[in-house]
């Protein structure tokens, strides 16, 4: 196998707060290859956004990337890189697209100015060049009459247009990797379709790798080639996208897929994952999913499951990998009855 573009090894990001240490990301490892789209999926609090921010070292105090973490990118370890060298990478080799296009843009500067700023920071050309380049990028993302739009302020654009501006900003320096953190969550479904279409289109054109972070299994299925499922600050399952959707192994992945109503299926009743995500300051011992898991047994309480390999490029952090027969005997009904488990 060739050298991956980005290799994250044993990444841990903890927040040292007054109420305790929040282990938001706890020993996460993955690789992203050239021109690949890796999806990270999970619910709020699973650590997916903190993972994304950690790669660019955008974690603010009291958060900290713990010693022992490695983020290898183009032959450098981003964890130990100096500040100015890190700034050289941000927006240049790795760029990021955020969830809320309105708040991610500075309200008092024109959008053209903000896109051009990337060029001014990393480029060698004049201000004029940066501006012209910014207008080109706005045009590339399908913004009509980009010269005029560039002179407008964020509040004068619609939500979809603003997200295009953020994409233009991310593409300015033709980065090797784009991290998209819930890029369509704040958008309406028809606009989401436009933006996802644009992203996949641009990726084909430019050959950029994408790290797509989302809570929406639909978005993952449509964009990613490989998927990580995160729960409790850990990767609980990873596989190629088709394998994952056809053959989910981890009870959390399985539960998530069956909890989601789908436009293509008739489902009499949605499966329910009981309870809520525990706070990151107090993950349960052993398997972090055990008190919501329909299969959990003693071993799950005592032994923190490793990431078992269960197939080709398919891993799952669940003891069922070694005791598969237990799957036949869930102690919770897979479709919950209200009041039954009080």
């Amino acid at each position: 196998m060739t050298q991956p573009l980005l290799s994250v090894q044993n990444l841990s990001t903890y927040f040292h707060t007054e109420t305790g240490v929040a282990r938001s990301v706890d020993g996460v490892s993955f690789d992203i290859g050239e021109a690949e789209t890796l999806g990270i999926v999970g619910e709020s609090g699973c650590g997916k956004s903190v993972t994304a921010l950690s790669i660019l070292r955008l974690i603010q105090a009291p958060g900290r990337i713990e010693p022992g973490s490695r983020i290898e990118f183009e032959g450098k370890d981003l964890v130990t890189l100096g500040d100015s060298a890190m700034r050289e990478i941000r927006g240049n080799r790795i760029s990021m697209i955020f969830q809320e296009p309105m708040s991610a843009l500075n309200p008092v500067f024109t959008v053209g100015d903000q896109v051009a700023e990337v060029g001014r920071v990393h480029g060698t050309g004049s201000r004029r060049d940066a501006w012209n380049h910014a207008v080109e990028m706005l045009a590339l993302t399908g913004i009509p009459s980009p010269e005029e739009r560039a002179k407008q302020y964020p509040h004068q654009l619609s939500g979809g247009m603003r997200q295009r501006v953020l994409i233009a900003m991310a593409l300015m320096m033709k980065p090797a990797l784009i991290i998209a953190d819930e890029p369509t969550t704040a958008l309406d479904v028809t606009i989401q379709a436009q933006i996802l279409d644009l992203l996949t289109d641009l990726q084909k054109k430019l050959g950029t790798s994408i790290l797509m972070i989302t809570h929406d299994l639909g978005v993952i299925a449509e964009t990613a080639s490989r998927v990580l499922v995160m729960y409790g600050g850990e990767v609980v399952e990873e596989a190629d996208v088709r394998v994952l959707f056809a053959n989910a192994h981890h009870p959390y992945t399985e539960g998530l897929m069956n909890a989601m109503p789908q436009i293509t299926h008739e489902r009499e009743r949605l499966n329910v994952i009981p309870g809520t995500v525990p706070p990151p300051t107090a993950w349960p011992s052993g398997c972090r999913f055990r008190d919501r898991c329909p299969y959990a047994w003693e071993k799950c309480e005592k032994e923190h499951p490793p990431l078992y390999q269960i197939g080709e490029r398919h891993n799952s952090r669940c003891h069922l990998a070694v005791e598969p027969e237990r799957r036949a005997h869930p102690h919770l009904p897979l479709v919950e009855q209200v009041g039954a488990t009080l």
Partner: protein
Amino acid sequence: MNSDTPIVIPRGWTARSRLIRDRSTILASCLLLAMAIPCFLAPLISPYDPAAQPDIVGLQSVAPSFAHPFGTDPFSRDVLSRVIYGGRLSLTVAIIATIVSVTLGTAYGAAAGYSNGIAGAILQRILDALLSIPRLLLLIAIFAAWRDAPLFYFILVLGFTGWYGLARLVRGQVLALKGRDFVQSARALGASRARIFFRHVLPNVWSPVIVAATLGIGHVIVLEAGLSYLGIGVRQPTASWGNIIQDGSDQMATHWWISFFPGMAIVLTVMAFNVLGDSLLKALEPRRSVME
């Protein structure tokens, strides 16, 4: 084990515990007690009668000593005793005036925010007008004319001119609350306007009111001192922090202690109130933490 398993929000994040953990709050509270307790126990701990002029010649403006830790004033009165008694008065004036203005401000602001249509608009216009009167100049004009008004009226006027800012704040809060879903939810349940107001709106405006009251007391102490310094506040021979400073103002260069100690008393007390108000604000509304 169902959806109700863990309580997600740590209890440690509540306003009370935030306040208790804050070191400056503790310091300010201690300072305040240290200032206020002697003042309110004035007759018990004051070394001399604050109005006594034992020896107008021999004891005139004597520097601090064991007998007179803060020195004496031009009338041979003991400055420490006057600062203690003056503090009792200054604090009382400030507290009563603040109670008056907080009551008025809350009532007016709530009414202005809760009324709809024309009534609300009129109340708002009146408030705008009141907000553009410079309080000190108005007070100077009033007290210059009503120079012999008793202390009680002095306090009332201070209260009556001090509520506009709070009224604006409360009005803003009430307007914001009116749009909140829980108020809509109460309406949808069939709650009457009065019930919505007293059960859902009012209980949620207390935090800015408490903060404003704390900061307001400090402000009134300074204001009272200023007016007394100008000779139109608390009148001689009654001591207040402001008029003690005035007693020494002509001889500041030579007999600094007369004005210095009451001034320090004001600074420490007011600072304690300001720090306390600020911590309250931080604890109650972590997003807004600026004194107004």
